[in-house]
């Protein structure tokens, strides 16, 4: 999310593409946060620490020789 707009709207950005979305369903989202989107609404904040932890788990899970 890159910018708060009027009327509970916000601008999100992904690799240079910007889109206006609604924040009406979430609380406490800040500029700089990543959000989960669905039909034009943010459904929740994405937790960067948990995301990092998941990636580590994924990497761990794949340890061992590829088949």
């Amino acid at each position, binding site marked *: 999310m890159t910018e708060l707009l009027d009327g509970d709207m916000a601008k999100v950005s*992904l*690799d*240079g*593409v*910007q*889109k*206006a979305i609604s924040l009406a369903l979430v609380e406490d989202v800040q500029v700089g946060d990543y959000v989960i*989107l669905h039909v034009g609404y943010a459904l929740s904040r994405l937790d960067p620490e948990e995301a990092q932890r998941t990636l580590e788990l994924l990497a761990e899970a794949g340890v061992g020789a590829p088949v």
Partner: protein
Amino acid sequence: MNAPRLRARKLDIRNGHVDLSHGAGGRAMAQLIGEIFAENFANDLLAQGNDQAVFSVPPGRLAMTTDGYVVSPLFFPGGDIGSLAVHGTVNDLAMAGARPLHLSASFILEEGFPLADLQTIAQSMGAAAREAGVKIVTGDTKVVERGKADGVFISTAGIGVVPDGLDLSGDKARPGDVILVSGTIGDHGVAIMSSRENLAFETQILSDSAALNGLVADMVAACGPHLKLLRDPTRGGIAATLNEIAHQSKIGLRIEEDALPVKAEVAAACEFLGLDPLNVANEGKLLAFVAPEAAQDLLRVMRAHPLGKESAIIGACVEDPHHFVQMRTAFGGGRIVDWLSGEQLPRIC
């Protein structure tokens, strides 16, 4: 396109609108044609003011094509309906290996269309034609009542000359042939969608709309005898074009997702819209099918051309009674690449 010189006052291009008299076959029509089309397309054949153009053509077989252009919005990042109407038709000629010569242009205008916009479109068509080395030698203008069209529709037809010995056609691909694309895919479709209000998203992506005849000339010069077919993946994206060719040539195709050039911004826009870049339109790209022994040469030649800098080998042809287009995904699994049969994208050409 008859444009006798008349003493009437000049068109008010800045503030005027197309009205029904501009399509009625009278002086008003002659004036519109004279001051907007003849002026911007400036060439001898059109200036003659006949209902047809007559000219000599160099030796060789003739290629002929047509396309209608109904893109919405009419003006989009990287082009407009005018340049598109030239590029699209020039490209369909070039895909036969033809040197494009002449175009015709049929305009269907909606009553009330701003003359200033028509002028911009005609300028853009004229410029695109000059750049591609073709002339718009004959044309027609109709005006329909407000609400019976959408601003302006353009149908262009084109002819070109195919050098002897070259025989490119959709049924010519054979197992083993290598598939190349001349650059990043999906740019045009995303540029159009980003300019549609209701999609409410913004990008810096420009349409790739461009005339490919120069690139093709280089390709033919270098690898002519090894080229099997060329096609520009417009409506339906490369997915549609690959499927068409698989069916026409009665083969299967195998491509690699990792090999596909896709701009990050295009990928992101597709993510927002739930689209696959494979299904998104291009207007300045081509797919080339070439004998395997010439694939590297062709790639080099394509990359040497400004419109082919990001060319890539994306796959090859195989025997397949089902004529499937299959793709190895970047993730590692296999999938079919199918025609899009989902709901409609905005009018992109």
